[in-house]
Each structure stands twice: as structure tokens, then as C-alpha cells.
């Protein structure tokens, strides 16, 4: 699949933003940090900004952005529509929580909004993943590895951004937070390795003989293409660059979004979780997620390509 930059950036940024919102909501409903209201609201604002930036990026991926409002209508069947509805609900709940935290910190309003926000943010990430997992035409997406890795990526990148933001307020993660973050980073890297092993084994089962139904007559090979120039299908689905670079990019992704953040988490565990460590871990993680998300698209082979080669 063609890795459209807008979609790669959208899923990464909105995932991080939703992770920040989820953690802010979790802290608000369970154990609010002893922060001034300005500092308490800041992560909500940053999370919402990341989500809006991601949505804006996806908006420009559309052929007719002016009609985007129609995407709210088909939530009964379409995961893309459900994602749009859930993302909007998340922004609404985030705004409500921020308002409650500002006007009446510690009130029940903020707690209620926080519980709704936590649910909406998880639902949005899950809906994003389901857009991909629901496509039977793309075996690399239609499997059980995709939704957990999307949720884990959002939580991990959200935690990193949250940590970075609070580090500006001289908050330092404790031993437990550092350890959990390090373990989550290692877990995410292991999940990605598991996903890659899965797609390498079950990537493209349907060949030209299968898609034409001619396999029973012998081995089938395209003799003449239906058109001399490219078409939409070949540009959108027939992306071949990734197979050449995957061997190098996969270890890069593991180091950037697994090893480096895990080292950051361990430094935090040792009491060294300052701004510099937080910033390094966050930037490395986001860069790694962009590489990982690019591979997620670029390595996914669509069934229709088998008609051509």
C-alpha cells in the first residue's frame, strides 16, 4: 500500500494525542497530581492539539475535504465513520474535563468527564485500528496483531509526551512509573517483532492464479498488462519500495521506539528522569513510530496487485 504521508502522520500524531488524553483522564479520575490548574490543564490542551493536528493531516488526504462532515453519518457500518465520531466525542469530553478542572478542580464534574474521556480516547484508537483490521483484502492488516499494537503505540507515545510536559514543571517519574514505561517500550517492540514475523509468514497467500480463478488450469502468469501507463490501483496499492528497505528499517524502528525509550524508562527508574531524558525518549519514540507506521503501510500487500504481477 502507498504510505501516504498524511495518513502516516495522522495515525502517529493522533495516537500520541489520544494517549496523552487517556493518561490525563486516568490521573484525573484516579489520583489527580498535586499541580496548579494551569499545569493540570496543559497536557489536556497538548493532547487535544496533537489529535487536531492529526485530524487536520487526514483531512488533507481527502479528495473533497469540504464534504468531510458527511463522514459522521455512517457509524452503523463504517469504522472510518466511527473513528470520526469517536474523535469528535473525545475532543468534546476533553474540553469538558479541562473546563471542569479549571472552574471546579477536584469536583465530581471533572471526574465524570475524565471517565468519559478515557473511554472515548481508547475507542478512537481502537476504531482507527479497526479501519485496517476490517480489510480482508490486505492480509498484513487483517490480523489480531494490529489493534493491540495500535493501542500500545498510542499509550506509550502518550506517556512519553505526558512525561516530557510534566518534566517542564519539575515533576520526576518515580521508580514504578519508570519501570512501567520501560516495560511498555520493550513490550511494544516485542509486539512489533511478532507482527512482522506474522506478516512474513502469512503476507500474500493469493497469487495470480487464485485471483483470476485460473489456477486449476496451470500456473498463471501475466503476459500483457491491461494498460501501458500506471493507474490508480498501481499507484495506491502497488508500492514496492518497502520490500527493499524493510530489512534496515525494522531494526531502526525497534531501536527508536523500543530500546531507546526503555533506556529512558530505566534512567527514570534510577531517578534520572529529567527533561533531557524525557525529551530524548519522546523524540526517539515518535521518530520510531513514524518509521514503524510507514512500514505498516508500505509492507502491506493488497490482493489486487496479484492481477498485475
Amino acid at each position, binding site marked *: 500500500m502507498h504510505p501516504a504521508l498524511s495518513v502516516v502522520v495522522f495515525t502517529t500524531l493522533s495516537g500520541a494525542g489520544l494517549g496523552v488524553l487517556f493518561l490525563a483522564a486516568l490521573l484525573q479520575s484516579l489520583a489527580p497530581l498535586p499541580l496548579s490548574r494551569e499545569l493540570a490543564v496543559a497536557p489536556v490542551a497538548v493532547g487535544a492539539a496533537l489529535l487536531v493536528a492529526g485530524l487536520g493531516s487526514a483531512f488533507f488526504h481527502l479528495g*473533497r475535504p469540504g464534504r468531510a462532515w458527511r463522514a459522521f453519518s455512517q457509524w452503523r*457500518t463504517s469504522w472510518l465513520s466511527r473513528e470520526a465520531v469517536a474523535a469528535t466525542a473525545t475532543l468534546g469530553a476533553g474540553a469538558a474535563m479541562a473546563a471542569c478542572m479549571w472552574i471546579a478542580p477536584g469536583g465530581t464534574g471533572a471526574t465524570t468527564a475524565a471517565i468519559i474521556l478515557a473511554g472515548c480516547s481508547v475507542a478512537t484508537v481502537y476504531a482507527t485500528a479497526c479501519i485496517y483490521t476490517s480489510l480482508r*483484502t490486505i492480509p498484513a492488516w487483517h490480523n489480531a496483531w494490529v489493534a493491540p499494537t495500535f493501542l500500545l503505540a498510542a499509550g506509550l507515545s502518550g506517556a512519553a509526551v505526558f512525561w516530557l510536559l510534566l518534566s517542564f514543571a519539575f515533576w520526576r517519574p518515580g521508580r514504578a512509573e519508570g519501570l512501567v514505561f520501560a516495560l511498555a517500550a520493550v513490550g511494544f517492540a516485542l509486539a512489533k517483532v511478532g507482527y512482522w514475523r506474522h506478516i512474513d509468514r502469512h503476507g500474500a497467500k493469493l497469487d495470480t492464479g487464485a485471483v483470476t*480463478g*485460473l489456477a*486449476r*488450469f496451470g500456473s*498463471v502468469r501475466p503476459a500483457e498488462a491491461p494498460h501501458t501507463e500506471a493507474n490508480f490501483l498501481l499507484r495506491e*496499492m502497488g508500492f514496492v519500495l518497502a520490500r527493499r528497505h524493510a530489512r534496515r528499517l525494522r531494526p531502526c524502528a525497534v531501536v527508536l521506539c523500543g530500546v531507546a525509550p526503555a533506556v529512558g524508562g530505566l534512567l527514570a527508574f534510577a531517578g534520572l528522569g529529567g527533561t533531557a531524558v524525557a525529551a530524548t525518549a519522546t523524540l526517539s519514540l515518535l521518530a520510531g513510530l513514524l518509521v514503524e507506521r510507514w512500514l505498516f503501510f508500505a509492507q502491506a500487500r493488497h490482493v489486487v496487485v496479484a*492481477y498485475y504481477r
Partner: protein
Amino acid sequence: MTALPLPSPRKLGLVIDLDTCVGCHACAVACKEWNEQGAFGPLPDQDPYGAEPLGVWFNRVHTYEVAAGNPLPPPTPARAIAPAASAAAAAPAQGMTVHFPRSCLHCEDAACVTVCPTGASYKRASDGIVLVDEDKCIGCKLCAWACPYGAREYSEVRGVMQKCTLCVDRIYNESLDPADRQPACVLACPTRARHFGDLGDPGSEVSRLVAAREGYAPLPELGYRPVNRYLPPRPRRDGAAAADPAAERFDASRLPPLLRWADRLLSR
């Protein structure tokens, strides 16, 4: 509404004969010509006369070479082949060329419809035709991702998705002669390899053709339940047997008397 309608008894579709198709692309050209000006057009091209023309076609004709003999052993044992028939006997001794027109199969379980976030993609309850309302489409391209048959092409120029309409603006068009109320591709085909009709009616001409020729739809394992059918190529005559010098031998004693006399006369 992108929820699929209840299955209708009427299932309009195409039956494409892979045995008689000669790969002339007349169907593809006729399709482009009609739909450029039809109710769902235009089908504008980018850079039409330049170095890299790119544009929407609803119909693409592939050409495949089927090698002689049985299919190679599948790379994975679990692989399912579309028509499960063990037609090993039909495997051509000399290999064959198959022309394969590829267009929308108007699936009964059309995932391109259910994934649409706007309601632009829909399946008609009355006859099962899958259409795009181009005034509602936002150009997110998700429907093209959901289609295994490559039936949908995105128009860069118009910013919307486009697809085969089964010439819905021809088949019900009362200003046309009844004989012309068929899809443009069907009328254009010089070898009559394309047939249009109601595949939901077991007594229709197309349904009888499908039953007689064991028509199939590719990729049944994906579960989209296409309406269109392909008629498989008939077994080719064994070219090797024709070239056999043993077949050249003939026994003069088995000829009728007049020819035996002529043979004897000419053999002197």
C-alpha cells in the same frame, strides 16, 4: 446509506466468457466512451496526450499465460484455489493465453459499500447494482482498499471515487431501442463474450449459461459473494496429438471402392 439492503431476488450482472474473449479491449473502450458522457461521468484523464496519461477506466482487460500441465505445488499447504474443481484433466498440454476483463462484480456482500463513511457508496435494493453517489463522496479511497477485484478507480481530477455502473443509465433508458438497453461493454463485444442479465433468476439466459459452463467468481474465500460470473476456458484441443506423424498414416484398404481405385491409379 451504507448498510447493505436485504438481498433482492433481482441480481443484475455480467457473465464473461473467458473462452471466447479475444482481448480486443473493445469493451473497455466502449465503456469509457459511454460513461464519459453518461449520468456518472465524466471520466477525465490527467495529462491525456502527455508522457504519463492517467485516468479512470471501469473495465481493464488483462492477458495471462497459463503454463502447460498441472499447477505448481502451492507454496503454503493451506492455500485455497478459487474454483475447487479438480479439473486437472483440463490442464492444457501446450499452455494457453487467457484474456481476462476485470470490472465490478456487484458483490452481494459488498465491503466497498459498508466501509464508506459518508453513504456515497450504496447497493440498490431493487436490482443489486453497486453505485457511488459522486455528490456525497469525500474521496477517502477506503472503498478501493476494501475491494479485492480492483473495481474502483479514484479520479484525481474530480476528487471522487468512480466505478462500473452496469450502465444503469442505459439498461433502463426508455429513449433507447429495447435491444440497446444493455451495458455498452456487452453491445461492443465482437465475439459476444459478454452477457448481461438477471443472475438471481435461475431460468434466465445468463443463469442457464452459468449452469451449463460451470461459471465461477474468483476469490470466493474472501466472502464478498460476487454476482458476476466468468465462464472458464473450454479444454483446448491437444496440439501435440495433431502434430503426431502416426495420425498421418492411413489405410487404403478402408477407403470406399471408388476412392481406392483412384488411390491405386494415382499411386502408380
